[in-house]
């Protein structure tokens, strides 16, 4: 690279930076976003958080009820994830290049996966809310559908990565298609699949809160209820229990992952 080239590169970087600053300024102008003003509100916001979001003794009395709802939410997420995993396994085997039965099924499986994946879980809960009403089935289904989309995608990759040589060997012994799937493909991709399922359980517990706010179920509903009643002490307690639960589950699943991989 000669000096001329270097100077040119330097100029390009400068122009690029100026461009980004211009775009940022323009967007904040359009959206009436004032950076200085918002920074100025930060101290006030924090002082509000620390004076209102306090866990008081009074709110602690509600703890058993909160824990019950939290348990409900966690178990719903686990149930939705595991059921979705079973469906995804079938779709993934249909959809994978290496194990597909025929092209049509493969395309259908991939279509179902990308369709349910590309609609966010929030949209799913709102759509299902209209058709199923406000109950825990709606929340369950919303998580289920979004999880099927994601897990199918992840499972297809795990199946594709599985070594094809043992499949060839089993074919040579006269094994049937299902022998190959159950004894050569699944044993090889199982650890990865379990890892994805654990990841999805974690994610779903987090999204279950949001889904709950929308569909009026589980811990999300409680959060929404006390939030709207301006009972910020309970909101703080609920938030705290959710954080503890998510961290605990993450620790447990990390431990499981270390054992299986």
């Amino acid at each position: 690279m000669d000096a001329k080239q270097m100077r040119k590169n330097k100029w390009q970087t400068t122009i690029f930076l100026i461009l980004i600053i211009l775009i940022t300024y323009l967007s904040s102008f359009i959206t009436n976003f004032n950076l200085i003003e918002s920074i100025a509100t930060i101290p006030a916001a924090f002082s509000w958080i620390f004076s209102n979001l306090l866990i008081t003794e009074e709110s602690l009395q509600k703890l058993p009820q909160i824990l019950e709802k939290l348990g409900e939410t966690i178990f719903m997420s686990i149930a939705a994830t595991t059921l979705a995993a079973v469906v995804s396994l079938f779709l993934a085997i249909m959809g994978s290049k290496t194990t597909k039965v025929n092209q049509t099924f493969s395309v259908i499986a991939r279509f179902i996966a990308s369709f349910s994946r590309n609609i966010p879980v929030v949209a799913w809960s709102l759509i299902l809310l209209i058709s199923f009403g406000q109950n825990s089935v709606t929340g369950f289904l919303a998580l289920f559908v979004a999880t099927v989309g994601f897990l199918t995608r992840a499972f297809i990759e795990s199946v594709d990565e599985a070594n094809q040589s043992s499949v060839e060997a089993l074919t040579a012994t006269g094994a049937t298609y299902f022998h190959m799937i159950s004894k050569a493909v699944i044993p090889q991709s199982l650890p990865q699949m379990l890892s994805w399922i654990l990841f999805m359980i974690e994610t779903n517990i987090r999204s279950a809160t949001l889904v709950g706010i929308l569909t009026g179920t589980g811990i999300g509903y409680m959060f929404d209820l006390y939030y709207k009643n301006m009972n910020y002490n309970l909101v703080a307690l609920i938030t705290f229990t959710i954080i503890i639960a998510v961290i605990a589950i993450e620790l447990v699943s990390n431990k499981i992952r270390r054992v299986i991989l």
Partner: protein
Amino acid sequence: MSLLKVEGLSKFYDGETKVLKDVDFEVEAGEFLSVIGPSGAGKSTLLRCINRLVEINEGKVIFNGLDVGAMKKKELRQLRTNIGMIFQHYNLVPRLTVIENVLHGRFGYKSTIQGVLGRFTEQEKEQAFYLLEKLGISEHAYKRCDQLSGGQQQRVGICRALIQEPKLILCDEPIASLDPNSSKVIMDYLKSISTEMGITCIVNLHQVEVAKEYASRIIGLKKGEIVFDGPSKLLYGEQIENIYGIESRELITV
């Protein structure tokens, strides 16, 4: 009647590249036959046409009096139970135990449900341990396959082929990924399989020296055509040169 008869076998990929051209040969029961030739000569394809892991384009493969090319799914399964196969990269399921991998050889005899649930009879399990004992790896029976050395994994592969009770064993470069010591062990086992158990072996090999030492008959393959077929003692320098091309002569004599 010969065990295996290959008549005018041709195979091409993408309708153009001809991998095998009009290959003819017969194999008698109990023979130890070696197929030699440079990489890309079509050795692997030839083996895979015999148990139809690769579809046959032209010509016939007749095994035990039955036309392999015309077989339906069920007959094909039946055929494959009679033909064991050993691979260069052993092709075991790495995360499963040795004994599980050996028992995979019985799938050809199982219904789908039996196989998926892993229902094997006591007799089959005893046979699996007997074979592991025979190949000297019985102490590894409960280890995962990815913990074994290459030579040990290949012996598991041999066990898996033998438990099928095959009439013919196809070996696709069984020693190409092994060190000289393990190679000798594996070749000795293959030889004893053919002499003691009377199982026919067709072994693809790179190494002419090994082929000459072990095989009773050698087929030389060059660009998909048979250029030599005869007793191994009749394979001289000139024919070897013809099979591999002059430029690689130094490689062969090593």
